[in-house]
Each structure stands twice: as structure tokens, then as C-alpha cells.
């Protein structure tokens, strides 16, 4: 019997939009900027409710990041919105110098991350953004797993002083975490306890991991599924505790293997508690056009791939 079920699918970007609207009501210092993707980012409700606090930046992301940095001077809390590709790679130096190094309280909110952007193809399917952002000193990096968690994360980052990268996606995806949850930055969530294997997953791959766990449990393998929504700062204690208990680790993420969540966990385990490990991630490839589910399958991110990774690591 599955411990996690869903009754509906919703896109995580809509969770962001709902969170942003609520923030607008709660906090008069919250301002939002968007680079000509207001509908895609679901920022229209905020724009319509608080037009004086919404800045349309046009297709000029570098400027948008600089403007956001400047807006913090005088106490505003800017939320920038565009696709993940244009939120990171395109504007890396602006984020590095004007936001991260300058210690500015900017919330970089990035939709359409990863393969699940789908048909637009590899130009837009950034799979390097977590790595780019986690390398910046002082940057918090969050990749929530469903609609409710994304909404809660959006609310939580407004309370956090300092730059944050919030990554979410385009497709409708199972909603399985509770409504109105409290989101604690940097705190891993144990979705399922088990003794044979620890799966650490983030973003859309959390649902795939829960599906994989269900299949594995049927084969008598006891699986622990831990949601690492905050890649940085990593909940080291949770990772080490679970890895010590099960002695085997699999990570799952919609990102390049280089620079992603698995890379962070491997670094931690290698230094503190070497543990056999497999990584489910894209392996040094660009994506392509297709449906999200097809892409997950082709690039090895589906629940079947997680099951296979668990079996590999259990043989080691």
C-alpha cells in the first residue's frame, strides 16, 4: 500500500505564483520583477493585485538582476522571475557580483528548470543551474518537489535574509505534500523510513523516488526516502544519519550529475562517512524536445532508473 498518493497534478510554478500573491498581501516590502514571462511564471495575480510593486523588466535579464540588487537598498525584498536558464547561466556574473558578493537580499525565482520544460528543447532545459548557484558563496539553493512545497518555500524565503535561488518547473506534477505546510530552509524531510537504502531526492524526482520505493518495498527492500529540498545549505546531519543507518545511498535529481545534489552528498559522504552510492541524474548530456515523461525515461530519471540504481548499489 502506497504511503503517498495524489488526487491532482499541479505545476510547481503555480505554487510559486500563489505564494507570491500571498506574500504581496503579507509584506509591503515584497516587490516582483519579471522578464516578459509573467504568465509563464504565474506572476499575473501579483501584478494585478500590486501593480505599483511589480516591475516589468522586458527581455533584459542582466539589467533585471542589477535592478533587483538596487531595490534592496532601502529595504525592498525583490523576487525576480524568469526561466531557470535565464535566471542563472545568462546572468551569472550579475548575480555573482551585484547580488551574491554584494550580499543583497534578492530572491531569484526560476521556472521551467530541467528536462520537464519539455517541447522547447535543450536551449531552454537548463540542467546546470543548481551547480552554478550552489558554487556562489552565501547563496541558498532550493528545489521544491510539488505545488504545496513550492508555495511554502516561496513564503519562507521572504523571511530569510540573503540571496536565494528558488528552482521550480513547468509540468503538472503530482501534489502529495500537505497544504499549508511550514517550510524550514535547510531541513530535510523524511517521507518514508526504511533500513536497506537511503534515497535522497529533490524536485520532480521526489515523486519518482516514492514510486520507486513502492516497487522496491514489494520486493522486500526497505527504503528510506528523504526529500532534500534545500541543496544548500545541505542538511548534513540528516544525510549522515540516514546513510549510517542504511549503509547505501542513491540520489535523484533533474540536473546534471556534475554540480547537483548527488555531487553535494558525495562530497559530504566522502569526507565524513564513505558510503556506497549511485546517482540518478543527467550524465553530461543536453536534453531535447519531447514530453516530460518521455524525457525522464530517455535520460534516465524515471522511477525505473531509481529502482535500477538501488539494485546496483545493493550489489556493491
Amino acid at each position, binding site marked *: 500500500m502506497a504511503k503517498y498518493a495524489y488526487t491532482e497534478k499541479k505545476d510547481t510554478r503555480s505554487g510559486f505564483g500563489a505564494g507570491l500573491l500571498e506574500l504581496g498581501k503579507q509584506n509591503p516590502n515584497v*516587490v516582483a520583477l519579471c522578464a516578459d514571462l509573467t504568465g509563464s511564471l504565474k506572476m499575473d495575480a501579483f501584478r494585478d493585485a500590486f501593480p*505599483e*510593486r511589480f*516591475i516589468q*523588466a*522586458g527581455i*533584459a535579464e*542582466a*539589467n*533585471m*538582476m*542589477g*535592478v*533587483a*540588487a*538596487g*531595490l*534592496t*537598498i*532601502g*529595504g*525592498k525584498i*525583490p523576487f525576480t522571475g524568469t526561466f531557470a536558464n535565464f535566471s542563472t547561466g545568462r546572468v551569472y*556574473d*550579475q548575480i*555573482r*557580483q*551585484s547580488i551574491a*558578493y*554584494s*550580499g*543583497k537580499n534578492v530572491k531569484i525565482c526560476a521556472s521551467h528548470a530541467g528536462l520537464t520544460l519539455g517541447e522547447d528543447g535543450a536551449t531552454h532545459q537548463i540542467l546546470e543551474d543548481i551547480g552554478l548557484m550552489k558554487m556562489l558563496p552565501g547563496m541558498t539553493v532550493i528545489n521544491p518537489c510539488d505545488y504545496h512545497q513550492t508555495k511554502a518555500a516561496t513564503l519562507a524565503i521572504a523571511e530569510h535574509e540573503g540571496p536565494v535561488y528558488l528552482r521550480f518547473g513547468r509540468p503538472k506534477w503530482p501534489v502529495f505534500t500537505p497544504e499549508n505546510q511550514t517550510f524550514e530552509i535547510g531541513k530535510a524531510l523524511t517521507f518514508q523510513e526504511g533500513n536497506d537504502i537511503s534515497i535522497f531526492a529533490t524536485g520532480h524526482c521526489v515523486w519518482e523516488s516514492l514510486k520507486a520505493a513502492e516497487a522496491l518495498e514489494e520486493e522486500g527492500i526497505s527504503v528510506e526516502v528523504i526529500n532534500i529540498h534545500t541543496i544548500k545549505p545541505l542538511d548534513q546531519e540528516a544525510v549522515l544519519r540516514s546513510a549510517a543507518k542504511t549503509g547505501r545511498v542513491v540520489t535523484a535529481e533533474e540536473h546534471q550529475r556534475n554540480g547537483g545534489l548527488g555531487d553535494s552528498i558525495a562530497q559530504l559522504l566522502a569526507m565524513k562517512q564513505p558510503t556506497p552510492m549511485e546517482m540518478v541524474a543527467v550524465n553530461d548530456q543536453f536534453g531535447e524536445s519531447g514530453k516530460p515523461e518521455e524525457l525522464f525515461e530517455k535520460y534516465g530519471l524515471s522511477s525505473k532508473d531509481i529502482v535500477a540504481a538501488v539494485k546496483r548499489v545493493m550489489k556493491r
Partner: protein
Amino acid sequence: MPNHQELEKIASQVRRDIVRMVHAVQSGHPGGSLGCADYFTALYFEILKHNPQNFEMDGEEKDLFFLSNGHISPVWYSVLARSGYFPLEEMSTFRKIDSRLQGHPTTHEGLPGVRVASGSLGQGLSVACGAALTKKLNQDSNLVYSLHGDGELQEGQIWEAALFAAHQKVDNLIATIDWNNRQIDGDVEDILSLGNLRAKFEAFGWEVLEMDGNKMADVLDGLRTAKDRTGHGRPVVILMKTEMGQGVDFMMGSHKWHGIPPNDEQKEAALAQLEETLGDF
């Protein structure tokens, strides 16, 4: 309120500070710093509404200044120290280990007077626009000033910001361009021509002024006129003609002194041309 002769004396000391800082560590950018000494002196000792003794990042009810071409940090550090943001002696730490006076300005070490890091070029106009919009949102009627190199205008982000400032009617911003026509590799017009800069900014929807950045009376006039032009729906830019290396004859007339320090002999020759008016640090 100092008159312009008194400001010229301060500027002379600022130029000495620049030469001595860059010489002491044998690195840094003296050329553009010397060229902008008069602008910085006028701004910090006459024009800006600021409180050097009690610097606050948010700068509420104060004017703000952003240096976008961060490599001319020596002139800024000198003027910040001379106007009371930090002790004069700290200038001797410029570009050395454990210093708040980094090669390029930063907030990271907590130096009073600096509100954003700069150095990677082209970013400061966007930041200044953001800060100016926050002033509007906060109903704070004070102004935002920014300085940019002319070579820096080759960065695309500047023109994104130029579009943005006009579109958003950022009319509480006075950007100044240090128009010395020099950059590291040579003359700006030879490297990547800016063409008709006045026409470009006008076409982007800006109010455009020009001034001689090495004549104190002209700088004061120019900055005051610019203030008068704020609040009319358009961002204001001052095209400021300067001479790289101004005040030290052998550093003028070429791009050579953009980023190299004087040796001992050159330092003495430079200081001989710059009157010590306020006492060296």
C-alpha cells in the same frame, strides 16, 4: 559650504592620495582616478546629501552614489576618507591583505560608503536604477548618482539599463559618464567606437547634459543643473569630458596610465605637480 577654490585644493590632495596609494602597493588604476578627482570632490564635498559619520546601507533620506567603473577605486577611497567615512590612515591598506580597501570596491568587507560591489563592468547603472525605484516606492525624494566609464558603455547591460530607466521614468537618477576616450587597449574610438553618444542617450529617452569634468566651476554647475533637471519624467545623464591622468603631465595624453603604478621616481615627479593641501595620509 566650500567655494570652488577650496574644492580645487581638496581635489589636489585627492590626487596626491591616488598617486601615493597606487605607488605604495605597486598596483591599481591611477589614470581614470586622476581624471575623476574633480567630479568626486564636488560630489562628496558640495552636492551629495549624506552622513559620512553614520553610514547606513539603506541610505534613507540621503542621496546615494554608485561607482560602476570600480577600477577607479583610489579616487573614491580618497574622497570617502577625506569626507569622514573612515580614517585617513586606512588608505595605506589599499589592495593589501586583510584590507577593507579592496582593489575593486565591495560591501563584503564592510567599508562605509560602498553599497554594491563593482569591477566587472556594466552593472552599476542597473543597480542605480533599482535603488532609485526603491526611493520612489518609499516616497524618498532624494537622488541617486552613478558614475560610469566611457569604455564601460561597450557592455550591453548598460543599454538594457538605459532603455529601462527611460521606460520606467527613473527621473531621480543622475548618471555621469567619464568621457575620457581612453580604455586599456587604446582610445575608445579605435577599440569600439561609441559614435554620437549624445544622440544615443537622447534617442533612448534621456535628458543629456555635458560638462568639463576637469574644471571645478563647470563640474559644480553641471551637477547643479542636472539636479534641476530631475523630477521631470526622464533620467539624466552628464557626458563629462575628462583627461585621463589629469594633474600629472606625463600621465596625460594617452591610455598608458590606465592601470599601471608609478615607480619611485615617477611618484616624486607626480607629487611635485600636486600641492599637499590637507596633509598626506
